[in-house]
């Protein structure tokens, strides 16, 4: 690393090299014969240049604005003809400093930032952060709030897997898969909107419970969702599972066996496609998942096709859990801890002006009790203090282990929040999955990892 050759160190007998070529040689230390920089202009002239070059090797920048890289992901591919000899992922194009921003907000407000990290799995981001904060607080959330969290997480898992299949289909030319995936995702988002008020980035899961109880009419809406999904999920099998083109594009592509997964820290469907039934919901249960009846599907081919099969199978399993949540939610109960120092005082309902408020609570703090007003003001603006220390909580997100490391210094704001995003870790496998394959298979391999760049870059 220390003795990079420089332009001046070339021996005097050698032919003159341009600075550009020397830079390419010195920094890459590879055997590239010529560097053809694509600066626009005439394609014929450019192709002539390539023809004169002795090597077939081309460095190709794929992204960050490429439609099939799943987001603002940049790939630097060394290609020899159609074969990828080296693949490197460059990230950071969507870095928004979410972790830093949370340090200047209260523990409750931080949820609104973190939900926007991996924007396809907002409930998971909220839940793992809240579980970590609750560990630090040493509190137990009410049973009904936990069931609601499970319900929302499983609906989110379905909508996230649908996008994974839809965008993966779009990137490989299976456009009907795309239209179908987004059609069903709408159904999932409608249910989320009814329960939380927002389609995405809800900020509904809060430290201590959830923001509100289930709205009126949720049973019928959820029954309709279950009915529609039961009808339409088999359509994915009919359209894609047995389809020869889909199989030819996906089978054997993006191969990563279990040893590679563990070394690279890969979790989620890629790990389960290599035969290891590691699902935190089963292996290290949280939110009472041990009480639900569901299976963890696994396959053994470790390729993109198996990861597709697993996503479809996991949606069926999620539907099973949703049905069980529906039964358990029949029993009423509180959805926020009783501790008035932590739980927000109002049980909000949507008022006549469309904003959330509670007339009873407003009467209490504005007309009856000065202390209640002070308490309300302090809890909302200052927040609640969390004992100094650190905690790590992990949930099984749609893409793998989603963890939150939360540090408190005893104040009302998180001292440090780190999201262990599965997309960030899983993207490290791009090199292992793509090198030696074809350029067109790079797209398939990345789609099978299903990174969401909002979570990758945070």
């Amino acid at each position, binding site marked *: 690393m220390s003795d990079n050759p420089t332009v001046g160190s070339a021996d005097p007998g050698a032919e003159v090299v341009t600075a550009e070529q020397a830079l390419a040689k010195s920094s890459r230390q590879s055997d590239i014969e010529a560097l053809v920089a694509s600066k626009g202009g005439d394609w014929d002239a450019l192709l002539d240049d390539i023809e004169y070059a002795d090597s077939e090797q081309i460095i190709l920048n794929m992204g960050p604005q490429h439609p099939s890289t799943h987001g603002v992901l940049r790939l630097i591919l060394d290609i020899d003809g159609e074969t990828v000899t080296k693949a490197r992922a460059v990230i950071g194009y969507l870095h928004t400093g979410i972790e830093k921003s949370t340090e200047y907000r209260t523990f409750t407000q931080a949820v609104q930032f973190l939900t926007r990290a991996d924007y396809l799995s907002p409930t998971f981001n909220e839940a793992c952060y809240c579980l970590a904060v609750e560990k630090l607080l040493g509190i137990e959330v009410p049973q009904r709030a936990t069931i609601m969290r499970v319900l929302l997480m499983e609906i989110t898992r379905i909508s996230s897997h649908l996008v994974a299949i839809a965008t993966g289909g779009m990137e490989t030319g299976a456009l009907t898969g795309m239209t179908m995936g987004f059609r069903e995702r709408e159904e999932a988002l409608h249910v989320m909107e009814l329960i939380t008020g927002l389609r995405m980035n809800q900020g509904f899961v809060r430290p201590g419970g959830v923001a509100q109880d289930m709205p009126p009419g949720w049973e019928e809406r959820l029954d309709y969702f279950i009915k529609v999904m039961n009808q339409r999920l088999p359509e994915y099998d009919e359209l894609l599972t047995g389809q020869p083109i889909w199989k030819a594009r996906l089978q054997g592509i993006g191969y990563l066996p279990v040893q590679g997964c563990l070394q*690279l820290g890969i979790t989620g469907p890629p790990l389960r496609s290599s035969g*290891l039934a590691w699902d935190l919901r089963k292996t290290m249960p949280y939110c009472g998942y041990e009480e639900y009846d569901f299976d963890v599907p696994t396959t053994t081919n470790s390729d993109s096709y198996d990861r597709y099969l697993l996503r479809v199978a996991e949606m069926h399993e999620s539907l099973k859990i949703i049905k069980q949540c529906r039964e358990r939610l029949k029993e009423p109960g509180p959805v926020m801890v009783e501790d008035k120092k932590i739980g927000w005082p109002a049980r909000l309902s949507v008022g006549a002006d469309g904003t959330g408020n509670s007339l009873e609570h407003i009467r209490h703090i504005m007309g009856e009790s000065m202390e209640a007003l002070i308490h309300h003001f302090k809890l909302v603006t200052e927040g609640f203090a969390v004992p100094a220390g650190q905690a790590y909580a992990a949930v099984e997100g749609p893409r793998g282990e989603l963890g939150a490391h939360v*540090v408190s210094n005893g104040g009302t*704001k998180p001292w440090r929040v780190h999201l262990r995003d599965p997309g960030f*870790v899983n993207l490290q496998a791009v090199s292992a999955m793509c090198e030696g394959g074809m350029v067109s298979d790079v797209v398939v391999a990345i789609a099978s990892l299903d990174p969401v760049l909002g979570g990758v870059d945070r």
Partner: protein
Amino acid sequence: MTETPQTTDVATDLAHTGAGALTGPTGKGAPVPPITPERHGMFHARDTGDTSGYGRLAIAPVTPAPATRPFGGYFDEVADALAAAMAERGIPESAIEQVTIAATEMTIYVSRAHLVALLQVLRDDEALRFELLSSLSGADYGVDVPRRLHVVYELLSMTYRRRVRLEVSVNVDDATVPSAVSIYPTADWHERETYDMFGVVFAGHPGLTRILMPDDWVGHPQRKDYPLGGIPVEYKGHEIPPADQRRAYT
């Protein structure tokens, strides 16, 4: 503010007891640094006369408490297995600075000199088998705290379904920690992010470059002395300062 009571010296309070942190009656070894500084007053009021009444308030630094035996749960088994494995491989007991059990989690504070050897033991020993490095991240405990930069390793044993946390702390002017990439290749991007955000240099990393910020960025954004930025918000004739300049309630 002039007559603040002296708080106890953290270093003497946590003097080395002689027994190893893993095998002794308490998980106490070499002193670990506090996670908060000694604080005076309230609401960050410094430049004007004290009108809050909190001016003479002194808050002692918080230091993670060493755990006492039995640690409870699987933590005792992990500690015993680790002590045995360390003895077998000739790693001195002083490599473990402290064991803390808090929030139902086990944190092992280790010295950076033995970090890689310890990770190797934790991964390979039959009774430990922490196959997966779940997460590696940094934390900056603030400018007034000794050894303020911490690196946190969240290890996961899939065989025994256990989690344990390793923590290393270093000074800003000597922010070098050996790289874990040779043991856990997944540490590659985690360490690049920690370097990018906190400026911790991981010695032996195959290509320690920035990963989230642009290559030519100056500074490490998640350090506590790096400003958040932002502009004051005007609201009906009043001005609300950026989030990092508002008063704090600690």
